[in-house]
């Protein structure tokens, strides 16, 4: 099986700070890959590089066999890579259904009419558990629903790969369980690959088939969740010395 999304020797630095160095990764079709690491370890930078918001200094990114490294963000997302943002960025002046409908109409759905798109958007909202709030505005939502909106919007473009940036952050345990269930449902229903950045270990452990651990832009581990969780270097970097001994 060949990777649907892969990166080769990606380098990116901001000023003097190396955010990513010689970073390699692969995502197989249908896989859920977790991306963990302490704050500032370069996870979000990686997402920004993949989605084209940030240009890497060097290295290559390939999607379905063709290179996408220097493509503009809209071209990359129209190929089928959708993402969410860690700090939610809804379109605040539009209601939820329009937020999602825009993603539908510009996504890979062969839908170009806004009315039709709203119908499809409603489906996606329903799938994400937001149907009852379709005509609310983002400002009226709680954080959990905003996270769901981010996911719904990304899903609505009918992507092949979904990049989820800390979708679970700020949620309580009950909400996290709900969100994990959503992630599974996404993979089942849409059959797409997911890369998720996450701090909530429970989510990582239950949802991911594979976990990549990052620290200071360097890959520390790339293995099964349990393996990574027990990797001494990962524990030291990510969970802290105290935990390692606890």
């Amino acid at each position, binding site marked *: 099986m060949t990777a649907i999304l892969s990166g080769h020797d990606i380098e990116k630095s901001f000023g003097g700070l190396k955010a990513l160095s010689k970073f390699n990764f692969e995502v197989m079709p249908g896989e859920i890959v977790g991306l963990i690491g302490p704050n500032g370890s370069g996870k979000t930078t990686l997402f920004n590089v993949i989605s084209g918001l940030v240009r890497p200094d060097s290295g290559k990114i390939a999607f379905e066999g063709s290179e996408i490294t220097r493509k503009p963000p809209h071209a990359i997302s129209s190929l089928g890579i959708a993402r969410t943002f860690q700090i939610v960025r809804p379109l605040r002046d539009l209601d939820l259904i329009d937020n999602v409908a825009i993603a539908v109409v510009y996504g890979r759905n062969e839908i170009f009419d806004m009315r039709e798109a709203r119908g499809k958007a409603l489906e996606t909202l329903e799938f994400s558990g937001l149907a009852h709030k379709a005509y609310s505005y983002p400002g*009226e*939502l*709680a*954080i959990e629903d905003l996270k769901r909106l981010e996911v719904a919007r990304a899903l609505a473009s009918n992507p092949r790969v979904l990049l989820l940036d800390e979708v679970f952050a*700020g949620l*309580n345990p009950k909400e996290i369980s709900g969100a994990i269930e959503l992630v599974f449902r996404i993979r089942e229903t849409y059959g797409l690959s997911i890369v998720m950045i996450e701090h*909530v270990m*429970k989510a990582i452990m239950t949802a991911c088939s594979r976990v990549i651990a990052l620290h200071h832009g360097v890959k520390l581990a790339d293995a099964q969740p349990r393996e990574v969780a027990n990797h001494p270097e990962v524990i030291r970097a990510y969970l802290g010395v*105290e935990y390692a001994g606890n």
Partner: protein
Amino acid sequence: MLEIKEISVSYQRHCALADVSMTVEQGDFVALIGSNGAGKSTLINSVSGLTKISKGSILFQGETISGLSPDLIASLGLIQVPEGRKLFPLMSVEENLEIGAYLPDPRKMYARNLGKMFEMFPRLKERRKQSAGSLSGGEQQMLAIARALMAQPILLMLDEPSLGLAPIVTQEIFKILRELNDEGLTILLVSQEVLQSLKISRRGYLLENGSVNLTGASGDLLKDVRVKESYLGL
């Protein structure tokens, strides 16, 4: 010293805090723990006046402070070290400390307090002319604490001081907090670092879903399985 009486806060229709009560005594070191989004920052911001409460009252040294503006609350000696440090990035370390001592009383003691800070954080002294934005994460956190101390707080509140810091740095900072408390400073600490914060604090509150679920001496909480459950979500 600080008394929070059944306060509620809601953003739009989302309830962030519901009937939360807690107290901080003179000389106390209280840790407020709970997972991300449990309402810890909201609570501390309500005390500081950054967030308006919809119900309840907050008393500081017997006086109601809910409804006052943040700068007035700060002038009472209730100083917060905000989450994410929020330094003045384009100003030098020294200028940051100067702003910390902006209020009239601390301003009079500026020179003396500055010396104390440089004693406590020698690294800041080395970088006194450097802009705050160019410091490393740990140094920035130290500066944020030093800035708050410059205001001669009666009660120091810290919001996630360990966020994004290396474990060693976190330990160092927590050690300083411990020392400050030993010298008599009252501290309210908000942190996700459950183990460490419970280890250094005297009492703890566990916040979950906008309400206090558990409270007691830190030592007891450390042993309580419910903490582990809530925090780790296991």
